[in-house]
């Protein structure tokens, strides 16, 4: 297919861009502009890809395959499905906004900073597009490297502990996954995701699931989350929660569920319980969190639980809703973390005790935060409402109580979002809120407005994502239709 090059370009353009940005001895301003330009070109290529993608066709599209490890059947195999197109789009758009934010606030050491942001873009797109387990693993790991440095160099005061926790947690999961990949691939005689056989091994399934659950993160694997989300620069937190976390959920959707149908049913109840626990527990923590970022961070934990609930409900509705919710929550969470950064820049803190009354004289900030809050608490008509509704409807088909738990958690979601809005915008003026603190500037608005516009579009037409992700049955029957039983079941 003549459009296949788009898939690879989306991965390698930012990576090549990262090298160029790092090598060219440009001024701070020029470096930032170049990086933003590259990330906008990336968005352009994604639009091209989405426009040319045939959403009525069920198979892998725009695929490219090249020999990598000749002998073990490991190939550089990339391509996209309907749902991958949306996740790639989320990555491109969110990364462009976050790169722009880094440019706007003028990060130190711009060449390293922007190179890492572009590297992160390429690696994340690679995760969503790879169709070979080793390629997937390589990109999955490659995401961690720029994140580690971005948090470790540009993060807050307690960044060291945050990075150590982040790396140890995620690598523990990833290495389990590597072991599972080795075993799977040697038994299946292929590492290909499209033609690979399914397996009934529960150990392998758990190896993959733990890695994805840590990345997502799902309760009880979220120990790295609070520190990282607080200590990272706001735009990196935005990427981490809005985009990178989706890689874990994507892994469940693309690898854990289709390759391991039997273990999926075997562990379904356990995973649904954990997902529901994450949803309720995350929502409650978000309600208790004392600061802006804490609320959004724990709400991300809750949302990951909700999405996992949809994925593992094993129903078409739940799955469609999960993809829609991944996109919607990605956009909401990126915007909210960027707003948190904007507020912190004006007040030096995100602590609710020191904030308040920011709505007065700052209409743009108030409007943005209100809009995002309303979408985020899933007011009927919003994209999040559509996503949550589909997920809960899917969960309801499994058993009514899953839906009941989910609905209860959504009530708490309304509570914490309203608490966030009132603590920042309303109430008495906080001690750190100076009169001179500016409203959202045009430059900042230009970063967040497209994300909000995307959310409003999705609110108007959620079927754009939910009906254009899967065609026919998913997980597809593998073409080789063989199943093997790995040892140590």
């Amino acid at each position: 297919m003549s459009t296949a090059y788009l898939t690879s370009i989306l991965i390698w353009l930012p990576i090549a861009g990262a090298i160029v940005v790092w090598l060219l001895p440009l001024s701070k301003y020029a470096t930032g502009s170049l990086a933003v330009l590259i990330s906008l070109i990336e968005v352009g290529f994604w639009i091209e890809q989405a426009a040319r993608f045939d959403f009525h066709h069920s198979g892998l599209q725009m695929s490219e395959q090249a020999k990598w490890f000749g002998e073990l059947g490991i190939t550089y195999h990339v391509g996209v499905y309907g749902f991958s197109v949306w996740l790639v789009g989320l990555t491109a758009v969110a990364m462009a906004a976050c790169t722009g934010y880094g440019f706007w606030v003028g990060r130190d050491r711009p060449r390293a900073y922007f190179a890492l942001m572009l590297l992160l873009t390429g690696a994340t797109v690679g995760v969503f597009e790879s169709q070979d387990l080793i390629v997937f693993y390589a990109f999955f790991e490659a995401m961690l490297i720029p994140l580690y440095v971005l948090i470790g160099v540009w993060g807050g005061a307690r960044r060291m502990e945050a990075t150590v926790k982040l790396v140890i947690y995620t690598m523990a999961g990833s290495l389990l996954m590597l072991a599972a990949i080795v075993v799977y691939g040697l038994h299946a005689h292929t590492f290909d995701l499209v033609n690979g056989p399914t397996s009934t091994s529960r150990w392998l399934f758990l190896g993959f699931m733990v890695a994805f659950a840590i990345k997502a993160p799902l309760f009880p694997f979220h120990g790295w989350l609070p520190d990282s989300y607080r200590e990272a620069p706001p735009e990196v937190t935005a990427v981490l929660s809005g985009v990178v976390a989706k890689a874990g959920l994507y892994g469940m959707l693309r690898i854990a569920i289709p390759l391991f149908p039997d273990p999926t049913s075997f562990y379904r109840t356990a995973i649904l319980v954990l997902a529901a626990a994450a949803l309720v527990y995350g929502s409650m923590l978000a309600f208790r969190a004392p600061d802006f970022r804490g609320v959004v961070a724990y709400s991300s934990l809750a949302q990951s639980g909700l999405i996992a609930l949809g994925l593992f409900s094993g129903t078409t509705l739940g799955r469609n809703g999960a993809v829609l919710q991944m996109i919607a929550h990605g956009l909401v969470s990126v915007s909210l973390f960027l707003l948190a950064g904007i507020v912190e820049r004006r007040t030096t803190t995100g602590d609710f005790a020191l904030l308040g009354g920011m709505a007065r004289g700052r209409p743009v900030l108030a409007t943005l935060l209100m809009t995002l809050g309303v979408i985020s608490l899933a007011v009927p008509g919003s994209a999040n409402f559509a996503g949550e509704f589909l997920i809960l409807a899917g969960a309801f088909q499994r058993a009514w109580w899953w839906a009941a738990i989910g609905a209860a958690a959504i009530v708490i979601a309304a509570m914490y979002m309203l608490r966030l809005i009132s603590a920042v915008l309303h109430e008495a003026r906080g001690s750190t809120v100076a009169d001179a603190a500016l409203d959202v500037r045009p430059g900042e608005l230009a970063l967040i407005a497209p994300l909000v516009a995307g959310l409003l579009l999705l609110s108007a037409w959620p079927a754009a994502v939910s009906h254009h992700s899967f065609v026919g049955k998913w997980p597809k029957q593998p073409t080789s239709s063989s199943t093997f039983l790995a040892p140590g079941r």
Partner: protein
Amino acid sequence: MIHTPHIDWFALSTILALLAASGVSLLGAVLVPARLRRRFGASVSTVGFLGGLVASIWLYVDSPHAQTVVSGAFYRDRWTALAQIILCGIGVATTLLSWEHLGRNDDHIAEFFALLLASAAGMAFFVGAGNLMTLFLSLEWFSIALYVMCAIDYEQEGALEAGLKYLVVGSFGSAVLLFGSALVYGATGTISFDGIVRAIGLPTPTLERLMMGNSLLVVGIALIVAGLGFKMSAAPFHMWTPDVYEGAPTPVTAWMSAATKVAALVLAMRLMQSAFVLDRHLWSVAFAVIAVASLVIGNLAALVQTNVKRLLAYSSVSHAGFMLIGLSAGSALGGRALMYYLIPYSAMAFGSFAVVAAREKELGEPVTLENLAGFGWERPFLGVAMWFFMFGFAGLPVGGGFVGKFYVLAAAYEHGWAWLVVVGVLATLVSLYYYLGVVRAMYMRRPELALAGGSPPRDRLTHIAVGMALAVSVGSLFAVSPLIDLARHAASSLPF
């Protein structure tokens, strides 16, 4: 009249090129004026290693079928040739590094290059050794050169101590290996690898012979394994490694950590696969145990190091463990895994010590995690290279180390040792902590120390050497197929 065997000079051409360069360099120590000696020695060394590189590439291409030459004393095959290619590559890089970073004055510089070339020639002979006699002689040949190289910068604190320590422990290792060889000879009545495997395969006539021969052979193999363990610095034979790596001049450390390991591992695989292939059930378990010990001890000890050279020394112990996993699998896949792993490993090991050498010269004192602070920002290229080496060592997919680990784990699993996969994975996880510690030290701390003033040292050649290492280490991630094909052809000359 003494019959001399027919000698295939071409099979020895790599060694001869290196030896010739060594001799010329040694002459230079007397004939060339002192101020030109460094340039002279380094140039001769570069030419020698490049000549060796060309010869070994030629040998690789021209030796599709394994054969022994010089009455079975030496193997002319692709396994030997590929190892020689790697050794000569490291040699070129080491020469560039030593040119700028070895010693405070030029007193012994020409001798140093002569020794470097001689040790390389010894290793090039060692990897192709065809009987226990050539094995031991070439082992001593390169070891003696290394003992002197460790101590050559005798004004440097700890250099003499390092040399002496290496001499004592290394001689002990050699003695153990020699004793083992003697026992094997006693059990089989022959010293050539091919003869040994035939002798072991013979039906044993009497019960007594069976008992005696077997226990002699088993003890002999055990002692040989231990002796080789010293050279590849695998635990529990690694005690000398951190002290010697710390005390030796850093270019020498870079050379030892990369080249000695290549030589010892390549030879071990050959010896085990050709001479003792019928006792695979014995040595494969032994090497697996040594691998686990190296992984555990190397990684845990590295966690608490603050001196970067010691840290890297323990890291090299743990990597010996990884590569021994490939060796212990005793399969064609394991052979390929080992050969492939050596390529990025030697590049990363050399490169990381080269970066340390650059920092050491800048500071004039041993490099610790403390005084690496800010290095990444001050020296962007070296910093980024070190960043790649550390992440590559940790097995993240920024270099061939990732593929190497994947391959050895695959070999272990194919051999049916899932537990070894688990150990490897856990070891990798532990190793992340200290590798990332180096990155953290370089980039994420403010430099509290006031650095020595003045202009940064001249080190264009070091940059070239580090750049070569970086290119090999990153390139081997993308060029997996061609490199694995090379390794496969090399491994196909061993009897699997």
